[in-house]
């Protein structure tokens, strides 16, 4: 919990600045938007964190978002599949992608970075080729399916209703938290991430766990991709999801995951994802030039994590001094 204080601090600081100096930050509509976007990126970040726990990395998240997302309108509109077939098919395809990564990594012992980098190229290439670089959209139809992302549930507040994407996010986050902290498999995953040989010597099926982690990550990315395109309505295969893996991994790392594996905090990851989205919106509501967006995000994160680290040290030193004679 203490580890999450840092990222919580950054998030709150950004919120405070945005609500004091920005226009209409604390309106229901804005908060609703922020919830939606944080939920979408949060799902990707949760997936990324599962892989990061194993000490691996998944660079293909953005491309899986693209391929899975693009496939939905492509199948629905161009190929006139039924929505009842499309959603499971896309999710199954995403899981297969993860399985493919997992097997290459555990069986052939290829480096995760390399495998998923090839994935990054491959799936985007497939998406572009499949659609002929034509953007895919719902053309104003399929609102009932898109409700999976677009529905809003009133909670008694006037301007704020809960976006539907919060449901999968909360379910996944809760499941992941319980999995990591309360189940044997989760514990084994943590052990595998930190010291694979210790886990193997303890009779843990490390290969299967690692493969499972990649499956989960791609599955989350596929689900995210679907929800993204439900939300946006259409997408261009050449740029949909570009860099999303970096946002997802950044959220996970901000939330306290170590890229060396074995550490994760579900709450932290969600806070990390939210921070990135709030930052982006804050820049607009503060009236900063959108050219500055990247610079501001980079600088705020850097200052934030550095400050967090410095505070941690200071506290440690003070504790030590208190214990001294």
């Amino acid at each position, binding site marked *: 919990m203490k580890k999450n204080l840092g990222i919580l601090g950054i998030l709150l600081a950004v919120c405070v600045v945005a609500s004091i100096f920005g226009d209409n930050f604390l309106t229901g509509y804005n908060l609703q938007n922020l919830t939606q976007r944080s939920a979408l990126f949060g799902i990707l970040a949760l997936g990324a964190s599962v892989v990061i726990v194993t000490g691996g990395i998944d660079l293909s998240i953005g491309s899986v978002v693209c391929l899975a997302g693009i496939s939905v309108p492509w199948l629905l509109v161009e190929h006139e599949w039924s929505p009842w077939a499309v959603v499971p098919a896309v999710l199954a395809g995403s899981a297969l992608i993860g399985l493919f990564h997992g097997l290459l990594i555990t069986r052939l012992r290829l480096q995760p970075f390399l495998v998923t980098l090839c994935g990054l190229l491959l799936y985007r290439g497939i998406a572009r080729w499949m659609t002929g670089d034509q953007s895919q959209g719902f053309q104003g139809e399929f609102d009932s399916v898109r409700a999976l992302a677009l529905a809003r549930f009133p909670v008694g507040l006037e301007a704020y209703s809960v976006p539907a994407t919060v449901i999968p996010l909360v379910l996944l986050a809760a499941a992941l938290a*319980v999995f990591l*902290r*309360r*189940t*044997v498999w989760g*514990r*084994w995953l*943590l*052990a595998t*991430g*930190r*010291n694979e*040989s*210790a*886990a193997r*010597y*303890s*009779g*843990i099926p490390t290969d299967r766990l690692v493969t499972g982690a990649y499956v989960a990550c791609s599955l989350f990315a596929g689900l995210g991709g679907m929800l993204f395109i439900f939300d946006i309505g259409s997408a261009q295969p050449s740029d949909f999801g570009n860099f999303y893996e970096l946002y997802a991994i950044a959220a996970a790392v901000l939330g306290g995951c170590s890229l060396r594996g*074995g*550490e994760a905090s579900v709450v932290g990851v969600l806070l990390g994802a939210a921070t990135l989205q709030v930052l982006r919106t804050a820049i607009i509501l503060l009236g900063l030039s959108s050219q500055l967006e990247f610079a501001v995000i980079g600088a705020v994160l850097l200052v934030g994590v550095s400050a967090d680290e410095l505070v941690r040290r200071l506290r440690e030193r003070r504790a*030590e001094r208190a*214990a*001294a*004679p």
Partner: protein
Amino acid sequence: MSVDRPVLLSARGLGRRYAGVSALRGVDLDIRGGEVLAIVGENGAGKSTLLRLLSGVVAPSEGSLQVADASAGIALVHQELNLAENLDVAGNIFLGREPRTAGFLNLRAMHGDARRWLATVGLYIDPATPCGALPIAHRQLVEIAKALSANARILILDEPTSSLTAPEVERLLAIMADLRARGTAVVFVSHHLDEVLRIADRVVVLRDGAVTGTLARGDFDRSTLERLMVGRDLAPAARRAASASADPARARNSTADAPAADSARHPTIRLRADAVVTRHHRRRAVSLQVRAGEVVGLAGLVGSGRTELLESIAGIVPHGGRVCLDGGAVAAGAVARTRAGIALVPEDRARNGILADEPVSTNVSLAWIDRHSHRGRIDAPGERTLVRSVVDRVLLRPADPARTVRTLSGGNQQKTVLGRWIAVQPAVLLLDEPTRGVDVGARAEIHAEVRRLADAGAAVLFASSELEEVLMLADRVLVMHDGGIAGELALHEATEEAIMHLATGGAA
């Protein structure tokens, strides 16, 4: 008498090759319930390989293994520690066998059980402590508790006592005896023959990957085992080492009897620690001095702060107080300290010592390669010559500088780390458990090397959990207790009883 005990595991013609080289061959062995089987041999003889084959961690390249009862269960404690440092002690003990209720972890049961198993090995710590924070001896005990908790019919321990101090060793031997009484088969490796002599029912001696003798209780004594291990009678130096515990001071041929004479023999103070306060023992300040040519031993129980003190002096960890070399204070930080001539052989060789995937030569030359270079360019022939001489001096087996360290036996990895500093003449040599896992013969040779370095003017300060070694090597003994120095014993005062008295908190 062994006939009525059930055979739990039997090996026939067991062997293992690595890259064409045979690490073990033709082992026929029956493991019976209710006996303690000791496996002895020099470093690299194939002991760990045999244990790994028996426990099934490694597949044999020849021969067969027969398990009498599939449900018997085999637990192995590896020579190199293998804990997931992000999990707590309880989590590690039950890793892979976690108690569950309705599919979920039962953390309460786990912590409760863990506490029980920890108590069995005499470790009274909170099972929720993360393993990353434990000193190495405690990790060893956690590993043993983990193996015990598996309730296996066959318990295999690879050098379980190498990092333990006397009380824990006693406790472990008692546990082994207890398990034997309950019909468990206990197989263990140790370089301490007195432990073997005390507890083993049967001893298997390995030399160069082959069994040179399987002896039942009554058929073996120290000299038989040594002969079988080495293939000849032990050299006199090693001989003395082996019997050192009997009368250490005399065994070392010491001439100096009074403390006064000591300082006369070593006039200059090389290393001085002024009120050094270490991180985890903030209430005690340690001051000590070591003269040029002097070898000072640090004794103490597990967790008494020896490692922290040595690491502080070497500048690895931040500390309070001052460290002076030849009268002048040395700046903080490992780089400055090393450059000034303070060298440390770390306790945890796997973590802080070796580059496992590099050859022996790179490992050995790592710290002093800058002294064998012209304007930064490595003097390759010079390096080669020196590495070769080091390999000979520490009796590395195989004596091949190109060998990747990961493929060396545990004892030989230790020799590699030792060799790194033996090659140069540091002004101050700090050794933390210098001969952990090193066999008797090589140990004597290493002691001789350390003595030689001291004679050439180095100040040597070493920590060892083996009183035997402290008494053997030290000119003077400092006993640590709870982070402070509980007392100092001159050579003639130093006995096991005196040291243990101080180490357990008795008044000086």
